[in-house]
């Protein structure tokens, strides 16, 4: 069924500062074949796509399109050579119609061809029909539904007649009906003899579609083969799902405090047409450690951003009995709700020490020094690296610095958004023990958002499970193991690499 090798990747490596995003990766894709690259958030799969497209430059390795090395070419040349990409997020031309947006993809890269060839219009129309945009061709993108916007991006890729199509999480945010329609579109790429590389964090959702799967973890290829083989492979299951669940647990004193430090009721968040959160209600007691567990895209970051006052929302959020709605993001943070974002947001060109000092700039000098000494005890590596630019730290060190900087603000509630993102197991261990030490020495209230259950569970007093914008489960870690464990672990849904050893 499959033809000759179209895309050949060998020894591909990409480093961002101290972080190795892709490590010595190699694979082939043949004409008429769909390869699924699967891995948890932060495993480097999107970087692979960007490296192939020439958006990022690899540090080492080859990318060959039909035998020709394209790995150092500029993006537009790679695109002209026959590689097309469908981005997960794109900014269409807002003032032009859907048809004109598709026409754009059909234009030659010429400075002198002012009037488009008449064929362009005909082709654009037929492509619009093919992807199911026939009825909305003359509308502007802002009038389109989320699914139709994605169709338009698909149409642009089709228009380029690529030999190789790269699809970045094509099903993210789509309803079930649309997933089926998109699967058909992707299958058609295969039937037309194109090579398809599809990136997703979830093996299950693409198992029926792909011919082969490559599982990535921390930038490395950990398994490759047929979807069912990969899913049942002991090694992958072990790496993907982690070791056994453990609850280190904190006992006593927590639940007797009846006062809710944080109370969220009926929270809803929309991004344009996409619903990120729906009727979320949760609470956190003083001194409690609450984990919000959910897959990439379930709405964890939106939840934290709403609490921090960074995105508009419907519903109520109270902190220490005070309504946060009328406060600016700055005021919320000054009130003690401190978020440590997924993206870390360090000041890359400042030293470790300067980053920490900035976090504690509101403290009097003496208590700042005390706080700093305590944090250095908690994260000894930061003390060693005080004078180093934070940009040059490794991923794990950056995460520790981000947490330490948030702690410098002496938060009433510390919100940690996916601290494990892209971190190696040994770092997870360190992070985990630092969190434990933190909770033993100082009374801290923590709200943790994680997709890595094995990391989220041990410290938690209570757990919420977030799925498709809603809270679907709430309870103690013990009950989680008993009730959700089965659901979560017999099913190869994306769960990051926990302990590799």
């Amino acid at each position, binding site marked *: 069924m499959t033809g000759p090798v179209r895309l050949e990747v060998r020894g591909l490596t990409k480093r961002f500062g101290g972080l190795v995003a892709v490590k010595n990766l190699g694979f082939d894709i043949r004409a008429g074949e769909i390869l699924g690259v699967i891995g948890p958030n932060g495993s480097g799969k999107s970087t692979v796509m960007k490296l192939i*497209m*020439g*958006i990022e430059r690899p540090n080492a390795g080859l990318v060959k399109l039909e035998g020709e090395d394209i790995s150092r070419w*500029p*993006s*537009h*040349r790679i*695109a*002209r050579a026959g590689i*097309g*990409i469908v*981005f997960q997020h*794109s*900014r269409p*031309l*807002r*003032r*032009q119609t859907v048809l*004109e947006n598709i*026409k*754009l*993809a059909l*234009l030659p*890269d010429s*400075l002198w*061809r*002012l*009037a*488009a060839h008449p064929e362009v219009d005909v082709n654009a129309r037929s492509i619009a029909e093919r992807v199911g945009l026939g009825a909305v061709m003359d509308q*502007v993108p*802002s*009038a389109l539904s989320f699914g139709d916007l994605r169709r338009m991006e698909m149409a*642009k890729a089709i228009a*380029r007649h690529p030999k190789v199509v790269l699809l970045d999480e094509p099903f993210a945010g789509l309803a079930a009906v649309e997933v089926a329609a998109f699967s058909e579109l992707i299958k058609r790429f295969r039937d037309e003899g194109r090579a398809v590389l599809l990136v997703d964090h979830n093996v299950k959702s693409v198992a029926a579609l792909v011919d082969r799967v490559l599982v990535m973890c921390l930038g490395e290829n950990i398994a490759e083969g047929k979807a069912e083989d990969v899913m049942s492979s002991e090694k992958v299951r072990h790496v993907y799902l982690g070791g056994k669940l453990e609850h280190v647990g904190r006992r006593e004193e927590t639940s007797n405090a009846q006062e809710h430090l944080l109370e969220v009721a009926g929270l809803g968040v929309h991004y344009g047409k996409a619903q990120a959160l729906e009727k979320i209600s949760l609470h956190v007691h003083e001194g409690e450690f609450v984990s919000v567990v959910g897959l990439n895209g379930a709405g964890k970051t939106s939840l934290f951003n709403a609490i921090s006052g960074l995105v508009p929302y419907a519903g109520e959020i109270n902190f220490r009995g005070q309504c946060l709605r009328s406060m600016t993001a700055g005021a919320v943070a000054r009130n003690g709700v401190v978020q440590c974002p997924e993206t870390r947001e360090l000041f890359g060109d400042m030293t470790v020490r300067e980053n920490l000092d900035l976090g504690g700039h509101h403290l009097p000098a003496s208590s700042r020094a005390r706080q700093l000494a305590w944090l250095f005890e908690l994260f000894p590596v930061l003390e060693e690296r005080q004078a180093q630019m934070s940009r040059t730290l490794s991923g794990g060190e950056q995460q520790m610095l981000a947490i330490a900087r948030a702690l410098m603000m002496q938060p009433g509630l510390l919100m940690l958004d996916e601290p494990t993102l892209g971190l190696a197991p040994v770092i997870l261990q360190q992070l985990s023990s630092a969190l434990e030490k933190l909770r033993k020495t100082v009374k801290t209230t923590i709200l943790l958002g994680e997709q890595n259950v094995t990391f989220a569970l041990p410290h938690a007093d209570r757990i919420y499970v977030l799925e498709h914008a809603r809270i679907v489960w709430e309870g103690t870690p013990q009950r989680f193991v008993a009730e959700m464990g089965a659901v979560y672990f017999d099913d190869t849904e994306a769960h990051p690499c926990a302990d590799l050893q």
Partner: protein
Amino acid sequence: MRRLLRSRLLWIAVLVLGVAAVLPLWLSAYVLGVLTAGYYFGVFAMSWDLLFGFAGEVNFGPTFLIGLGAYTAAIVNSRLGLGIPWCVLAGVASALIGGLLLAIPALRLRGPYFGLVTLVAVLLLQNAIVIFAGVTGGEIGMTVPDVLSLSAVTNYWYALAFLVICAIILFGLSRSAMGLILQASGQDPMEAQALGFNVTKHKLMAFSISAVFSGMAGAMLAFYMGAASVGTLIDISIAVQIIIAAVLGGRRTILGAALGAVFLIGANELLRPLGQLNTFVVSALALAVILFFPDGLLGHALHRKEAK
């Protein structure tokens, strides 16, 4: 064609043009003179909008290109004694070459650096003119031997015709395939490249076109005024006026930029009796429009329904 006839923009343009064409019948030479200058500014603003509104690059130094065009034309005229068309051509060539020398390295830079480079270019040109006062007349400026015409009405027609021709060309370009690619390059360069467009090449082209029209308008303006001086053609405050005019009229509309320029020059003259307050009132007005109608006057009229 049917779409063209239905377009609101076309009818606005025809209406404005009709009014502009009958103005010489009853307006005084003084008012015509103000409008004439306004029309040249209109071309400056339109050229600027092609670069900012479409290619997404903020050029803080439109007067660098204008000044190159005007001074080259003036020097060629006074030193070599060539006729006006040749001088204007020389001005265009110099603006284009100067613009390319500036843009080729500047477009490699990302973010605000392109804008900063263009800003520095204006200061450099200003200083060069002062340093080479022997040729350029320095701070006082230089007079040109030839002028377009002595009659205010003839000058008005020249300027209006020039504006209309430039508007048709620039507007046509903005609606062409090139305009589409430019907008894509300005809005999402990563995706534009992934669609196979050499973003730098297209932006460079936009800059060249902007340079050609700015240089030409600068040269024409010098021959209209009979003089070229730093204060009227190159100073940063002139650059700021051009930018305000384009934003005021409506980003990404081309024609709005011309309207904005005429409006701004007109308002400046109208409010002249206010003395010192004049600039203040005009600036406050511009600020209010930018704050409340970020799409500009024409942009607001045309795209009211567009979601942000």
